[in-house]
């Protein structure tokens, strides 16, 4: 099962989304900051396609989830603030919990607030994991925090670590309570020595601390999904067909594309 996440920055990028969907054989498309009319988006996506995409139900419009799956395959569990939690039940294979996220921007929220919000989201996810009775959970979205920030890495928050072996220990006890890990493969996609661009979002500012490249767009996997994550399919997309999503300077082209880069990944959901 292949997934695309992209924060569109309100740009009319339906042609590019459709091209990514073809190029990477995408099953589930998750979009943030999408101002494209859904009808237009579906017409573009479904042109000449046999397996057609449809919009899945959501009470919130902050995130759009489209899928070329049977209608019953994506079941809404919760829409809470900046998080949409779905039970993804493929026609064949194991079900997972899909959490789409678009957390508040640093422009509107202090880092400390973001971390506190992340702890609330972590509890929401745990509630739904209890509800469905498993922890095959993947979080994907624009977290508006880097992987090293407390809201993503702290035990009380999303508790996402850079190393599979650590994550495979399942949990650790902090303050007398077991805190379950996520594995965050985005750690491997930061900086010049990584595969692909140095991050997913570039921002120039006059602040003392400026990373320039940020990795706000992330995928976090519970240990139960690590062996199903296909490393070779995991991409921060910079080129779609002949079109580059970067400028000549190698930063996201905010004129013809978005200020965020799309991410693509795949999970093998077959019965093992």
């Amino acid at each position, binding site marked *: 099962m292949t997934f695309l996440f992209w924060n569109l920055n309100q740009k009319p990028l339906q042609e590019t989304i459709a091209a990514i969907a073809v190029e990477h054989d995408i099953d589930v498309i998750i979009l943030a900051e999408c101002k494209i009319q859904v009808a237009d988006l579906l017409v573009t996506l479904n042109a000449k396609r046999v397996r057609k995409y449809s919009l899945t*139900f959501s*009470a*919130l419009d902050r995130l759009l989830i489209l899928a070329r799956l049977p209608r019953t395959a994506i*079941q*809404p*569990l*919760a*829409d*809470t*603030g900046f998080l949409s939690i779905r*039970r993804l039940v493929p026609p064949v294979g194991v079900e997972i919990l899909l959490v789409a996220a678009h957390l508040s921007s640093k422009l509107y929220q202090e880092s400390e607030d973001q971390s*506190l919000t992340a*702890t*609330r989201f972590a*509890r929401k996810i745990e509630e739904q994991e209890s*509800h469905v009775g498993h922890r095959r959970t993947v979080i994907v979205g624009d977290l508006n925090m880097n992987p090293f920030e407390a809201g993503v890495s702290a035990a009380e928050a999303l508790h996402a670590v850079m190393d599979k072996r650590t994550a495979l220990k399942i949990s650790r006890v902090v303050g007398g309570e077991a805190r379950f890990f996520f594995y965050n493969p985005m750690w491997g996609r930061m900086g010049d020595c990584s595969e692909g661009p140095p991050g997913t979002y570039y921002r120039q500012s006059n602040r003392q601390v400026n990373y320039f490249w940020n990795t706000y767009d992330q995928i976090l996997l519970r240990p139960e999904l690590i062996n199903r994550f296909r490393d070779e399919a995991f991409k921060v997309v910079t080129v779609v067909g002949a079109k580059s999503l970067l400028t000549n300077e190698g930063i996201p082209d905010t004129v013809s594309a978005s200020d965020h880069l799309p991410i693509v990944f795949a999970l093998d959901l077959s019965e093992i």
Partner: protein
Amino acid sequence: MNTENLWGDLPKSGDLRTPVSILREQATILGDQTNNVLVGDVITTQRGGNIVSEFEIVAPALDNYRVTVLTISHDMTLYPLLVIRHLGGSNVQCPDETSFIAVLKETLSGKRVHQIVNSLLSQSKAA
């Protein structure tokens, strides 16, 4: 020697309605009005000295699908409180109970919430 009362006249009983109790009343009304096809749920947690409560609409027939309508946050003095509206509309700081009830009314009777209630009712009946 008589012990002096340094407390002044304390209230005989707490006569304030807490913001959480106001939310719970509205949760009950939602259940009554929809014959419990939809129910309201208020989840309260304590965070960093603040009491945070989330008001959610739950659709039992849809695998307990829940949508968070708003979150309120206040300290031990109850007011001022912050209302975070998840279904559109800006966040609002309410200085007292009257303004909180006004914001709550504006939110719950708003078009977006009614659209969602209608959609969830229809889907629940079809389920």
